[in-house]
């Protein structure tokens, strides 16, 4: 895919930007209106002494909020995040992985359904057939994936079979050096999945994490299991893994890597291959969320295209407003493309600027 900026792309980018700015105004109005906003943001505005509804007109104006602090999402009361406009609606609570301390929590009403329904349009029907059943092998529990993958399957007319993996237990086992137990647990997870996949021939679509995908393919052939499409995510993925999966594991199945998390939503990949060294390129679901790459020291400054920096997320839905959150990831800034005429990210990986390492990508 071309990375040059054509007039058409430029025009598309301008349209997208205009739509983003309008969306920002709508979302800020909602979250800071005393009738619809959440306690958290209404309190925040009162303490800040300015009215975002009056002053935020564009996406760039979000700079006024500074960086969203992840500590705000750790601990309660969690209801402070529920917008008054949604009072009485059933609320789900999703947590992040919990690899460091108290997990971050985000409330959800319909966002995961909207995000995954939108994402569904990016999956090729040939490989993720409508009406086919899905197999989810990976973290469920308090994570968004628990409901999101099932919704994706249902949205496409399928039924989702689930096998759970508890990543927090895996992290503990690794910290204790219980590597044999990690292997036994992984085997236990794959055993369950294989039983289901062999017993239910309409399972044609798979969601799993990179490590579990490898473990599954060590035990069985995706082709023989009848898998046509693999949606893979949840942890870091390298270009080498991407290539390995496509060349050696897929056996003709479609490989759709994804980058997403509980806080932002779900990014869509732009397919790449050997011509781009199997780079993993993601685009955010603009205008509902944005991903930017910023200078690791001057986090107000977006880096040049192709340059490396820290990933900054912004979530802009009526359920959740999270401006300028600095993720624990780094990546290269990717140019807009015809399909996604806004910035993307290339080769997301754990941020190298932290003094201590976090047990990551264990499941």
């Amino acid at each position: 895919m071309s990375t040059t900026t054509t007039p058409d792309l430029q025009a598309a980018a301008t349209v997208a930007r205009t739509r983003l700015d309008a969306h920002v105004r709508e979302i800020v109005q909602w979250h800071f209106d005393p009738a619809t906003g959440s306690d958290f943001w209404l309190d925040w505005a009162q303490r800040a002494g300015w009215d975002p509804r009056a002053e935020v007109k564009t996406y760039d104006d979000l700079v006024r909020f500074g960086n969203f602090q992840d500590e705000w999402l750790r601990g309660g009361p969690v209801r402070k995040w529920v917008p008054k406009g949604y009072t009485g609606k059933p609320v789900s609570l999703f947590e992040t992985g919990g690899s460091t301390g108290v997990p971050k929590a985000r409330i959800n009403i319909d966002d995961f359904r909207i995000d995954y329904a939108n994402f569904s349009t990016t999956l090729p029907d040939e490989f993720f057939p409508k009406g086919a059943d899905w197999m989810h092998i990976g973290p469920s529990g308090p994570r968004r994936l628990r409901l999101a993958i099932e919704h994706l399957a249902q949205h496409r007319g399928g039924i989702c079979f689930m096998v759970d993996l508890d990543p927090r237990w895996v992290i503990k086992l690794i910290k204790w050096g219980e590597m044999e137990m990690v292997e036994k647990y992984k085997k236990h997870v794959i055993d369950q999945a294989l039983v289901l996949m062999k017993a239910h021939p309409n399972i044609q679509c798979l969601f799993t994490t990179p490590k579990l995908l490898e473990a599954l393919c060590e035990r069985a052939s995706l082709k023989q299991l009848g898998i046509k499409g693999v949606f893979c995510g949840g942890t870091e993925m390298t270009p080498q893994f991407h290539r390995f999966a496509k060349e050696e594991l897929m056996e003709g199945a479609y490989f759709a890597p994804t980058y997403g998390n509980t806080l932002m939503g779900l990014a869509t990949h732009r397919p790449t291959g050997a011509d781009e060294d199997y780079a993993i390129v993601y685009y955010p679901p603009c205008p509902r969320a944005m991903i930017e790459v910023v200078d690791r020291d001057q986090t107000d400054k977006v880096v040049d295209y192709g340059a490396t920096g820290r990933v900054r997320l912004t979530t802009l839905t009526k359920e959740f407003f999270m401006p300028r959150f600095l993720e624990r990831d780094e990546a290269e800034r990717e140019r807009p493309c015809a399909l996604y005429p806004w910035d993307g990210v290339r080769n997301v990986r754990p941020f190298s600027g932290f003094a201590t390492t976090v047990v990551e990508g264990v499941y």
Partner: protein
Amino acid sequence: MLHLPILRFGQPYRSLDVASVPDFRTRQPFVTVSQANGGLVRRDLLPQQQARMKAALDAIPVAELVARTKRAAEIFAHDTLPVGEEAQTPDDYVRQLSATTGLPHVMVRRNLEKIRGVMSNVDIVLAGLTRGLPMDILDTGAGEISGHAMGFVSRGDALGVVLPSNSPGVHALWAPTLALKTALVLKPGSAEPWSPYRMIQAFIKAGMPPEAFGYYPTDHASANEILRRCGRGMVFGDVSSTKRWAKDPRVEVHGPGYSKVVLGPDQADDWERYLDVMASSIAENSGRSCVNASGVWVTKHGRAIAEALGARLARVVPRAPEDPEADLAPFADPKVAERISAMVDQGLREPGAEDVTQKHRGKQRVAHFDGGTYLLPTIVHCDSSEHPLANREFLFPFASVVEVPAESMPEILGPTLAVALISDDEGFRRRFFASHDVHRLNLGPVPTQRVAWDQPHEGNLFEHLWARRALQRATA
């Protein structure tokens, strides 16, 4: 830039994930090395794949595998071989290995010769390892010796080896593996990817089946996967990195040796005669081998011996890698040198130990020369065997001189890989013969690092790879 690929069943595979290894002097990238992702390693080491690797060797009689190993010895030492997509002469190999490890050329050549020697004498080595077993028994798994039925069974299809970067001489330990009909899966040390790659190329050129080889530069986690997945394993490293495998009988652990020169009470007053043996045991190969002495344990004259060794070893100074007189290797990572020196200093802060080399060399222990960072030889005199430095091992010419009562030896030495036992006192010697803690005994003034390859230490490769099987035939 020069690039070393992964070898999957002997075939090059260029990974998108590469590690850059710097020149030890300039710190500029010198070579890039493909890194295997964990899934790739695990997939290649599925049981059916290991069986395929071994089957390629099983198809060849042991006698022929021995002949090819001998041929490979000369090819390794003399031929131009592929290194990635380029050609590597033996001189290139010496220069390249020196560039990333700092090992002086003369030491690389010495180690090259050591590897060649083992491969070239693999029949003698195997005779030593098997105590003279007719090797063709391994072709069928059964035979007869002195009228007794004899059966053997392979303990694993492949030997996975996690290799160090400190000295290429260690590769001599796994070199006979193929002749024992066992496939090889190697994880090279990050700074020394050269020797195992070149050895594999030599084996292949000598006619060994390429599919019997795996070469997987990779991270720590995947290195552990190699040890976990291969039927048998061998790991080199310090205590912290190898302790996980200490209780796994499938894996032979090569950690610190704590090797020592012991001067018996009958020779105590003649200590000056043995200074050469002591100095050579400590400093040869820049003190990098587990069979280098890290202690000189004596019953008398400890202070005088320490002073004399200190004066002798203070003459060892950094020289250019190309200098034929070079006998000290720098550290590929200067921070490691600083850290080791700080550990020695920390030990010296405990009363009862003195760095006797310092007054002779008149310099700091850490030295910089021609872009390299070195640790100068260090002899520490310890008042007591209880001192924290009395029984330590570091990756440079370091030794403690400790004076202990004769009757306390060998128990007081603790686990010791190699002992050069200088004593004609039969009673004293017998106690060492009876010791479970002493692995290798060099009797008389034979330096600790002088190794006869038919005398295995720290595990016997044949016994590691093959088990005796009870065998009984129906009587006619």
